[in-house]
């Protein structure tokens, strides 16, 4: 039945007796081993059970976050605008729930935290794994820390950790551009942008802090250790170091920003300074401002309420969000369109007698008595309304809107900030779309001088004027250097160019006109003149309410908004500054603010040789 057995030559059975003693030896050996093992268990489980039970009860794994410091924000020359400062946060360890709930009143009293707040936080984080502690108090005082240390035994749920808190510039300096950070909210967590973060994470909420949050934020690490009931580390289990956030270098020049902030002191409005050659934003101010440091420490609901309900909207970044009528600054666009179309020439002239009638309605010129016979150049210099009423009428609203939009109106500039507004350029098509109403010819007349439904943001103003003066090259405004964020933003074209080529004559006429505004007699922008600097500009006064109403109600709130935009040099400017002075009434009152900023820039430029300035400005870092 089985294959031939060549292994045995012996009769069955006798072959196996060879090892019977040895097998017996193995049996006894086995018995001995098992007895040994049983003894081992006896010792652990019966002889000394309390020793190990105690160890078991005391075993706890403590997991502490190693918080990643957020990247600093520096200006183009490396000067710090936003940094961090070390502070202590108090954590609550949640593994021993029963004990924790018992100790809550004591914790609440000792750390001066309302018990409802503690309970609320516990509820909020109920879904997170129990070994992860939650922060219950930030910027702990030395009294808090002393309380914690004194109660290490009876309140073992408390732990402290050092964190880096955001330190913003004082007095709301550059507050709107920078933005602020805060704890990620529940609704934000549902947003794909923030989906990767856990509750309790500190993220950018507005401005650049939000726009570049992923770069600034870094990644928290973690440290797990086994601790005994005294909270003393018995054993380090694992440690993952934190990855620090990356520093963000802005295109903002601290000197220009300071000059702008100082010049706007006591006023409401906005300032935008940019370099049309590169699109870099050199300064951006919005007033009124607020203190972002209040947000970095948890803001009280009272303070938040005050900010949100303030009728002046301090949280609004007027530079990119205020959409207001540009007034006479729009004449630059009007003139550009007219010249391009050929409807206007340098010789075009009208007779301004202080007003004119169009479509049965009398439209006034700001100059009582009129400008007399006036041609294109002087019309820009003295900002003659009648000239531009005619220009607008001859160009026609469709063409006017076409040029305005191609020059940048009613479109976002694409700046790297959240919530930019796009303004409004009225046109028959627009009116049909928005109000299902037809266009009235008289509306063209108001639009021609930038009144009515026309709306522009200060950023757009700088962008448009800069682009026109550069011959129709519009560079996208941006606040960080593209080379610095190439790794994190490979697809972003932060400084892309949009071209709408303009005839050389057009550009020459318009910029000469703007030069005249500042430097010629009778020019409305004389207050922007800087000796030795080639500056061109345009004033604007935009009606907030009708003239009749202002006569009746004497309120500063109804005074016109004052605009001024300046460029230096007048053609292919290196710097363009747009200022909105809310309720400043006259455009020439906004001009000195522009002057301040351009002067600061120019003085700086003069102090250093071109090469040195380029080096300081980081130009060699650009590809």
């Amino acid at each position, binding site marked *: 039945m089985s*294959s031939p057995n060549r292994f045995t030559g012996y009769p069955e059975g006798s072959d196996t007796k060879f090892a019977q003693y040895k097998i017996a030896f193995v*049996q006894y050996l*086995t018995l001995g081993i098992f007895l040994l093992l*049983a003894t081992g268990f006896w010792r652990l*489980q019966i002889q*000394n*059970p309390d020793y190990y039970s105690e160890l078991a009860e005391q075993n706890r*794994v403590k997991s502490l976050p190693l918080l990643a410091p957020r990247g600093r924000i520096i200006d183009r020359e490396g000067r710090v605008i936003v940094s961090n400062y070390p502070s202590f946060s108090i954590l609550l360890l949640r593994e021993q729930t029963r004990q924790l709930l018992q100790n809550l009143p004591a914790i609440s009293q000792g750390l001066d935290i309302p018990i409802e707040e503690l309970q609320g936080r516990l509820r909020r984080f109920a879904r997170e794994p129990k070994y992860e502690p939650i922060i219950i108090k930030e910027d702990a005082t030395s009294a808090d820390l002393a309380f914690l240390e004194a109660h290490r035994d009876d309140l073992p749920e408390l732990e402290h950790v050092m964190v880096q808190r955001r330190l913003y510039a004082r007095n709301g300096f550059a507050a709107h551009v920078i933005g602020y950070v805060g704890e990620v909210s529940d609704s934000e967590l549902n947003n794909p942008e923030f989906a990767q973060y856990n509750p309790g994470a500190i993220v950018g909420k507005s401005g650049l802090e939000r726009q570049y949050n992923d770069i600034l934020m870094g990644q928290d690490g973690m440290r797990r250790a086994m601790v005994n009931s005294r909270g003393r580390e018995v054993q*380090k289990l694992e440690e993952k170091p934190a990855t620090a956030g990356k520093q963000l270098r802005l295109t903002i020049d601290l000197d220009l920003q300071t000059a702008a902030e100082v010049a706007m002191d006591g006023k409401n409005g906005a300032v935008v300074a940019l370099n049309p050659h590169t699109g870099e934003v050199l300064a951006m101010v919005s007033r009124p401002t607020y203190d972002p440091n209040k947000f970095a420490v948890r803001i009280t609901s009272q303070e938040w309420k005050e900010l949100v309900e303030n009728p002046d909207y301090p949280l609004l970044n007027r530079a990119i969000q205020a959409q207001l009528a540009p007034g006479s600054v729009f004449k630059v666009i009007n003139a550009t369109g007219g010249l391009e179309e050929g409807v206007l020439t340098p010789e075009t002239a009208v007779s301004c007698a202080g007003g004119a009638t169009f479509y049965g309605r009398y439209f006034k010129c700001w100059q009582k008595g009129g400008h007399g016979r006036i041609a294109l150049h002087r019309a820009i210099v003295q900002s003659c309304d009648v000239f531009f009423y005619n220009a607008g009428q001859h160009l026609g609203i469709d063409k006017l809107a076409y040029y305005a939009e191609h020059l940048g109106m009613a479109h976002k500039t694409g700046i790297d900030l959240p919530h930019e507004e796009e303004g409004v350029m009225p046109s028959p098509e627009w009116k049909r779309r928005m109000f299902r109403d037809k266009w009235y010819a008289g509306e063209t007349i108001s639009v021609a001088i930038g009144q009515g439904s026309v709306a522009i943001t200060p950023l757009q103003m700088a962008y448009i004027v800069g682009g026109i003066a550069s011959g129709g090259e519009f560079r996208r405004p941006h606040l960080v250097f593209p080379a610095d964020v190439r790794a994190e933003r490979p697809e972003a074209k932060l400084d892309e160019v949009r071209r709408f080529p303009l005839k050389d004559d057009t550009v020459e006429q318009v910029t000469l006109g703007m030069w005249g505004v500042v430097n010629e007699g009778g020019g409305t922008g004389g207050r922007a003149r800087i000796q030795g600097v080639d500056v061109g500009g345009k004033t604007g006064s935009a009606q907030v309410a009708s003239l009749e109403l202002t006569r009746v109600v004497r309120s500063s709130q109804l005074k016109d908004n004052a605009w001024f935009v300046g460029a230096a040099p007048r053609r292919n400017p290196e710097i363009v500054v747009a200022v909105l002075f809310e309720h400043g009434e006259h455009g020439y009152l906004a001009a000195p603010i522009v002057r301040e900023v351009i002067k600061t820039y120019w003085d700086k430029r003069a102090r250093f040789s071109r090469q040195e300035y380029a080096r300081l400005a980081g130009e060699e870092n650009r590809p």
Partner: protein
Amino acid sequence: MSNFLRYKGFDWFLLGMVLLIAALGVMEIYSATYRTKFAGAHEKQIYWILAGIMLMFLMTMIDYHTLMEQVPIMYLVSIVLLAMVLVVGRKVFGSRRWIPLAGGFHFQVSEFVKLVIILAVARYFSEARQSKVAVGDLVKVGLLAGVPMGLVLLQPDLGTSLTYAPIVMMGVLLAGIRLKHVALVALLAALAMPMAWHYGLKPYQKARLTTFLNPEGDPLKAGYQVLQSKIAVGHGGLWGRGTTKGTQMQLGFLPVPHTDFIFAAFAEEHGFFGVLAALLLYFMVLMRLVHNAQTAPDRAGVFIVMGVVGVLLFHVLVNVGMVIGYMPTTGIPLPLMSYGGSSVLFIFMALGLVNNVRLRRFVN
């Protein structure tokens, strides 16, 4: 006729006890994993056991003499496979032990090589005619097991490589080693130790051995495992904490509770009485195996069965010993209780070999 042989002569008693231990294992695996990412492991273990039973029956079908005839080829294949593991094996937790197969299974070669070595040693010593072992024999069997041992050690897998040693030791013991040879080997081992320490062992392996000697004073992770194991065991007390209520394991303090430290988890949940019962079952299995060796039809059969005894005894000693701190942590599983397909399949195939021998005891 052969069918009749198969069912009546089969060692059902042995199978019964083995399945009892396996059932305890499945229960403990469930308890250790039901709330973790390994949940469902107990189901997989049941599948492995069923597959193991089938393999066991298969192993009894081919006469073990035929198997022994094929030993040279099997040995060669084993060496090749072990070498392949070093080249193409998947790295898991820092060592290569598995060859990935289609269907998401992997194949821990070193476990199956044990069977080949058992057969090889049995064949070697059954062909010998002297009553005592010569030095030459020692060297030969040493190499026979030593080469695979070395290959496994390179993976690196110290624990499994050591499990080949008891097969040789058992064989050599049964074949009749002279006392002076024992002394000689012991001397050589003692001399080789310092060399092996410095060049042979990886740092963590060294650490395991040092912490074995002094676990509580050691802050390294190696001591942590044993410490936690002893805490878990001690926490079990007399009656145990109850199934799924072993807190040390449930709270994650006991490392790998469903594999290497399953007996610690078992001890925490079932206490001293549970431990005694489990140890008794293992003891009975071993004694039954020895009985099968005593009733083996020929020399080869004895070596085969005792080889299985040696391996099983070694596993139990080292694994359970590790759990209570009597042995260093070596990462070898507890057969029938630890979760792991290869280990389950190995033990059932080994039992198949034993039944293979048993079924032929009345054959002429």
